[in-house]
């Protein structure tokens, strides 16, 4: 709307002011510091400065046995701990080259998709907060609570689960858990429409997010953006489809991509809408998995101590934020020589300085919110 005129108006350029947004700021989603060069309200340059939450995760892992790493990966992406567990376990299992019982895979898929719903709920709620809508946040948080209650019933933990281990899961699903999950899905189906009424169709929300912070598909790919943030730009790239792991090829689901319904393809509204649609797809997957879950053991035949053969492995996983990669080098001992994690939120954040330039300070919050970063994972 008016913003293009403002940008062209180079004759009224005044001195630039450097604004430090964060590390303590309500909408940087953690301890991120944004060094913003502003010309009035308009952002001329933006540097994300990270590292405030650096906990030497990768170095720690070089001194921990493979089993002991699991609680540490939990703490990387603390909003989608199950995804982290799952991603790491897949990497170790690939290194060990072991077969898993069918039931384990089903449980993992159910849990992972529930976790995706929980994580996207936080993303949507905080995105609403970033554009100034407070009520959606409390609604999403109270719905996420229901998922977390399910996880608590499953493994006793509410945030950092340590549930998916290399070679299996810590506890079996109870029949009651399955009933409660179905109950939640039925409830959430109805609630989903309420979110659309409150936020998706709100004219002010559309005004604030459509046509704002457009990530063109090629720029997104160049920067290594993955997950819903890339799919919002119309790129059909979801590891569950393009490089299926676990048992995802057994299920029917679609990969929603941004179509620019309210503005341009790749704007903030598209990224928001992709997350909304993904929750719907996740519900579909959970229903299918629950309908066909087989009986069986929840632990694979594993050696007492994990000592993989010499070699290295890279495994990819589609987490709620994007493409999580674990690169593990083993020298035959029970401790990895090197463990490198590819953090999706880190790559997604790197595009901020490219995208947010020329927008207003309010839009920086919107764009940052639409990228859905978790600082625990960026800084590791």
């Amino acid at each position, binding site marked *: 709307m008016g913003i293009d005129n403002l940008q062209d108006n180079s004759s009224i350029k005044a001195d630039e002011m450097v604004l430090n947004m964060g590390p303590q700021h309500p*909408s940087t989603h953690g301890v991120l510091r944004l060094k913003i060069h502003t010309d009035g309200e308009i952002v001329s340059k933006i540097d994300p400065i990270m590292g405030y939450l650096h906990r030497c995760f990768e170095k720690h892992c070089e001194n921990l046995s493979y089993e002991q790493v699991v609680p540490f990966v939990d703490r990387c992406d603390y909003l989608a701990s199950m995804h982290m567990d799952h991603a790491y376990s897949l990497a170790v299992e690939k290194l060990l080259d072991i077969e898993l019982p069918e039931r384990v895979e089903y449980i993992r898929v159910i849990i992972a998709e529930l976790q995706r719903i929980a994580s996207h709920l936080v993303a949507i709620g905080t995105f609403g907060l970033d554009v100034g*809508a407070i009520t959606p946040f409390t609604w999403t948080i109270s719905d996420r609570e229901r998922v977390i209650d399910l996880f608590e019933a499953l493994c006793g933990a509410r945030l950092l689960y340590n549930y998916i281990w290399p070679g299996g899961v810590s506890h079996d699903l109870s029949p009651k858990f399955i009933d409660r999950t179905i109950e939640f899905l039925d409830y959430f189906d109805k609630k989903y429409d309420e979110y659309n009424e409150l936020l998706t169709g709100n004219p002010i929300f559309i005004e604030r997010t459509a046509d704002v912070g457009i990530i063109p598909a090629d720029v997104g790919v160049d920067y290594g953006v993955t997950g819903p943030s890339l799919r919002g730009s119309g790129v059909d790239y979801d590891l569950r489809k393009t490089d299926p792991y676990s048992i995802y090829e057994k299920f029917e689901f679609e990969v929603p991509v941004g179509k620019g319904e309210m503005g341009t393809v790749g704007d903030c509204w598209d990224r928001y809408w992709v997350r909304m649609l993904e929750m719907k797809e996740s519900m579909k997957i959970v229903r299918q998995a629950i309908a066909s879950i087989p009986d069986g053991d929840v632990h694979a035949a594993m050696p007492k101590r994990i000592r993989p053969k010499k070699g290295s492995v890279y495994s990819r996983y589609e987490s709620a934020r994007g493409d999580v990669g674990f690169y593990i080098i083993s020298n035959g001992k029970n401790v990895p020589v090197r463990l490198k994690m590819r953090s999706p939120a880190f790559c997604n954040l790197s595009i901020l300085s490219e995208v947010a330039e020329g927008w207003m300070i309010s839009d920086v919050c919107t764009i940052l919110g639409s990228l859905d970063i978790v600082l625990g994972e960026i800084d590791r």
Partner: protein
Amino acid sequence: MSSVVGSLNELLVSLFSDISLDVSFLFLLAVIIPGVVIFLIMTVNAIVAVYMERKVSAFMQDRLGPMEVGIFGFKGGKKFWGGIGQTIADAIKLLVKEDIIPNDADRFLMILAPFIIFIGAFVTFIGVPFSEGLIISDFNIGILYVIAMSSVGVIGIILAGWSSNNKWSLYGAMRAAAQIISYEIPIGLSLILVVIVVGSLEMSEIVKWQADNRWFIIHSPFAMLGFFIFFISGVAETNRVPFDIPEAESELVAGWMTEYSGFRWALFFLSEYTNMLIVCIIASVVFLGGWLSPFKIINLPYVDIIPDSFFILDGFYLGLFWLLIKAIFLIFVMMWFRWTFPRLRVDQLMYLCWKVFIPFALGNLVFICIWELLF
């Protein structure tokens, strides 16, 4: 329906005329008594409105809101008025809190700013009516005075933002200045409608016209449009969602009040809720029939369907009741906005004001003149 007293000032004058005291002392009394009354109204309003806001927001968000703090041992328990003493407890907390002034701040201006904002809200009340005859001073430029005084506060906001020596405060202050000054114009333009029709700026005259004819909102389609422009601009004028960009908490932390704490911050808070009340009362008086009962939404002298006994519903005390009901409903609508809408961006806000509201309000002005000529 003869008026009990013209205004509080006239009442005081008639009382003092019998007392043989020094004139300057009486003058002092005449200043202090209305001042105390206004201050009480402001405080009570803030206490009630904050409690209402917390409960309204809570119910919209599937929460319960304050449930713990009762008054004098009276606790609602699990009932919805559970935390009725919460605002009082909060107010006491704010008053005893440490008052921090940053080292690099402009000390004098930082101390001055909250008082200017407070005084802006305070003196506006002189022209705000609460019922028939329940007004501090019913002077002949009533509406003009209220509009003028309600924009005094913006000076305080700019001072607060500048003196805090904080970039966020400065942003908030600049946004607030631009916003409040811009939205003065549609507010003024939509109030002129009623002035044109009634031919007076006096509050009691405006309500009298509505008693004789009909509520101004149903005077014509243009008056209705004028009401919406006035009310939405009023929301913007009081810096509330969806126009709360000066204190946008997700962008500017707390905008121009970032560096304030304790008592000074409490003054800002008090002024915000007072401004809300003023806007809602003015909207009710000018457009919604003021202290007239809803049965008098339209006065049809030739069809005598409403028996006269119904009009006992009007009067001094019931007038206060009706006016407060209307104002509280409008305050509720403001809260409703706040807890369901996202926030507009700075340029969108200006777009709405300069390219939507002002042209429509100007057009309104022309059309209502034509309407007055035709009917």
